[in-house]
């Protein structure tokens, strides 16, 4: 990798900012959509569950689990919003030309925690889907376990520490006469 490729490319930064902003907007739409589905599941369960092929005969395990998944979905949207906002702040600081600051280490650390919570919610969704599924009415949301996100969480925590150390070193260098 040459030093040129390491230098921030204004086009790439602008694109990243636009992509992140777009994803954040889509995520808000997703969160609102799941929220509407949750309300519909309470107000008009027959219509909603009928549309997705579930026989809603009352407060049975399947419908309760699906409502649980919707609540987790809303929480997931909130987490994704926090992660994307943190990433946007980091990208913005790169654009301004001052990314090696303690604030960005804090952003990375917060992203790592939010990702950890998201993975725990992912496990919860898996458990709820398993609970909702019956031999008569199989419920498959394509859930699967993967180690990759857990490694990403670990990596983010390490990166946040490295970033914090680097920012402190930079502060020291800046204060050296």
């Amino acid at each position: 990798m040459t030093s040129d490729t390491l230098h921030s490319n204004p086009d790439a930064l602008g694109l990243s900012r636009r992509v992140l902003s777009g994803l954040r907007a889509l995520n808000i739409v997703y969160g609102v959509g799941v929220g509407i589905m949750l309300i519909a599941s309470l107000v008009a369960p027959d219509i909603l569950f009928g549309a997705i092929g579930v026989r809603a005969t009352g407060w049975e395990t399947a419908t309760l689990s699906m409502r649980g998944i919707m609540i987790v979905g809303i929480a997931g949207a909130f987490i994704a919003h926090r992660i994307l906002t943190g990433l946007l702040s980091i990208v913005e600081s790169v654009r301004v030309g001052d990314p090696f600051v303690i604030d960005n280490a804090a952003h990375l650390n917060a992203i790592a925690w939010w990702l950890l919570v998201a993975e725990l919610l992912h496990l919860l969704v898996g458990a709820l889907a398993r609970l909702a599924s019956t031999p008569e009415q199989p419920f498959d949301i394509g859930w699967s376990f993967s180690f990759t996100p857990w490694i990403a969480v670990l990596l983010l925590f390490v990166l946040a520490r490295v970033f914090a150390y680097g920012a402190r070193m930079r502060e020291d260098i800046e204060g050296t006469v």
Partner: protein
Amino acid sequence: MAINVKLDDLLYARRMTLTELSEKVDITLANLSILKTGKARAVRFSTLEAICRALDCQPGDLLQFVEE
């Protein structure tokens, strides 16, 4: 800060301005100002050497430990 920089006193004693010192030691006025006001986090040996040479003093004349 526990380390007191006595650059002001030395400059007064030598009848020298910070700008003149800056030109002599080839260190920016901004950096010398940081040092003078005690805002510096560290001082390079090369900086210390240049200032001591320009002001004809010892490092001990420039820095003073003060119990907080």
